């Protein structure tokens, strides 16, 4: 799917999000830039604390970015008033990680799904029911569930309600934050198949935030790997998975167990744990754990550069 001739749906430019706590400064997102094209699914991967969720929330202005710009179909979202932003929200939706904390336990599914439609005045009285039934059918849930409460549903069903709530306004862009992480491995594939089908049916563009790299491989066209607030590698999905260049990406991929006893391979075991975001090392943020680090890596932060065919890497050793 080469869509580069079109304009990007979303263009993120030097986005920064800094949290301050007393004298401490935490740079959760440290200047990331990327474009997402229509109909694409872009994976944003990395381990906990790498800034991927903060990045998504800043893009949608669920939290205010510290600096940088986010262009959505040409409009700079960071410059909009909150009223103007609210008007955009029907086009920019998010599916959250944990349906238990993001679905109101006191609302029936009907009320949860009706709210965005009423908020954005998208339906008259007559067409509400029709829209609810259509959306339930799109996410393959029995319409009978409209009358139920979240606790009466299984994990997989609750996550489908989360997806239904996001797509009911027929958005152009959806940020999916770990939609498969709370699910059993055997039902993840169905969630991915569902997201794929919905993307085609509704022509949506996705950012898929996940540490579940096998789900990312199945759903995304492009992947961006984050480490301590910066993108350290990005490119077409198969390139990243089959020919990773950054040592961190290599280690991350090699750590994922493969469900095939014949597929024994070399695991790159990383030493230690990621450093604290309060204390990001100078130079390349990964140099302390990198098996290939050179003295120069301690001094200069490598820039993300194109090494061919849209594969970008932030490592001076490549």
């Amino acid at each position, binding site marked *: 799917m080469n869509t580069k001739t079109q304009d990007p749906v979303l263009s993120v430019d030097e986005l920064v999000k800094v949290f301050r706590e007393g004298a401490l400064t935490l740079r959760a997102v440290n200047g990331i830039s990327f474009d997402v094209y229509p109909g694409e699914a872009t994976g944003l991967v990395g381990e906990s604390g790498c800034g991927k969720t903060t990045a998504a929330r800043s893009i949608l202005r669920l939290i205010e970015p510290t600096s940088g710009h986010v262009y959505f179909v040409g409009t700079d979202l960071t410059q909009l008033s909150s009223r103007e932003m609210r008007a955009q929200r029907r086009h920019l939706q998010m599916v959250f990680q944990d349906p238990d904390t993001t679905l109101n336990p006191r609302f029936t599914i009907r009320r949860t799904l009706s709210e965005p439609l009423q908020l954005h005045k998208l339906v008259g009285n007559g067409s509400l029911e029709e829209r609810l039934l259509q959306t339930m059918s799109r996410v393959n849930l029995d319409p009978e569930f409209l009358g139920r409460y979240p606790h009466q549903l299984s994990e997989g069903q609750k996550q*489908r309600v989360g997806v239904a709530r996001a797509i009911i306004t027929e958005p152009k862009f959806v940020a999916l934050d770990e939609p498969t992480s709370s699910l059993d491995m*055997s039902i993840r594939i169905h969630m991915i198949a569902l997201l*794929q089908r919905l993307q085609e049916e509704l022509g949506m563009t996705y950012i898929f935030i996940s540490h579940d790299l096998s789900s990312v491989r*199945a759903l995304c066209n492009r992947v961006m790997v984050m480490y301590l607030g910066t993108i350290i590698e990005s490119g077409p999905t198969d390139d990243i998975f089959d020919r990773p260049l950054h040592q961190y990406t290599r280690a991350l*991929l090699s750590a994922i167990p493969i*469900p095939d*006893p014949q597929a024994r391979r070399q695991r790159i*075991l*990383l030493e230690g744990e990621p450093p604290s975001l309060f204390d990001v090392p100078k130079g390349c943020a990964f140099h302390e754990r990198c098996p290939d680090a050179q003295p120069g890596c301690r001094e200069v932060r490598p820039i993300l550069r194109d090494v061919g065919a849209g594969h970008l890497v932030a490592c001076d050793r490549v």
Partner: protein
Amino acid sequence: MAARDTLLRIEGLSVSFPSGDGRVTILDNVSFEVFGNEIVGLVGESGSGKTMTSLTVMGFLPPSGRIEGGEVWFGHDNLLSYTEEYMRRVRGRQIAMIFQSTRSALNPLMRVGDQVARVYRVQRGLGAREARAQAIQALTRVGIPDAEQRARAYPHQLSRGMCQRVLIAMMVACEPALLIADEPTTGLDVTIQAQIFDLIKNLQQAANASILLITHDLGVVAETCDRVVVMYAGQVMETATVESLFAKPIHPYTQRLLHSILRVDKTIEMPKVDAGLSEEVAYSVAGCRFAPRCPQVLPRCWEEHPPREQAGPDHWVTCHNYN
């Protein structure tokens, strides 16, 4: 392979819980073995009964649970016939368990070094000074850097990965013959998960111990385990060596399970049918509980419990279609 010592043998274990006006059989005639010096994966989806099986072995069955039948042999002892007081002596010393939620398994008000040292005092009868020295050694052995200093930390000051290492250090202190690890890397990042499994495997080999590893991750099973027990809705569907199960899954449930895993090493074909609606599990079926979802279902599958049949060396299956 020479005859192996059976360390744990579960035979025909059935456990029920109250549900509505009646009782629902959460474990239905569960049978499998754990031999000496091996890692057995107990796999299945949420609600398949894998955690309940391990709780029953540990004598931690919740009060509303009732054992309807069966035996749990550990060496020459049927654990189900013992009192709580006796079980307290078995737990820790002989069978230990690592739970899913690391933080809540540690005492938040006690320094982690003291928690490990306490195990040496209680289980091994060491004095305070010696227990403390051993604790720091154990923390070093599980890969905690600056163990002497970290021993003074409280759990909230350590990362989840470090907390899991502390728990493993407590297990090491007990030197159990059998360790039950229930999803021990839930909530940990994959690079940390890889470190933890590496550690668990090394410790297991060094101690010649056995591990019953509860997981829903077939990747972890393929890379960590020697044998596998596949459970569905409280019934054991298939048991086999890892190689045999992945090469030649026999039960239709196992086949479906293996075909539904997403892979990081290759692009797989996505299912045409979205099985979103059929998640409810059929605990009420008298025969094979996979019958409602089985593509090869036979009339008798609904009524009769299939026998456990041998399908190869170390490969057993519970399915009417076999033969």
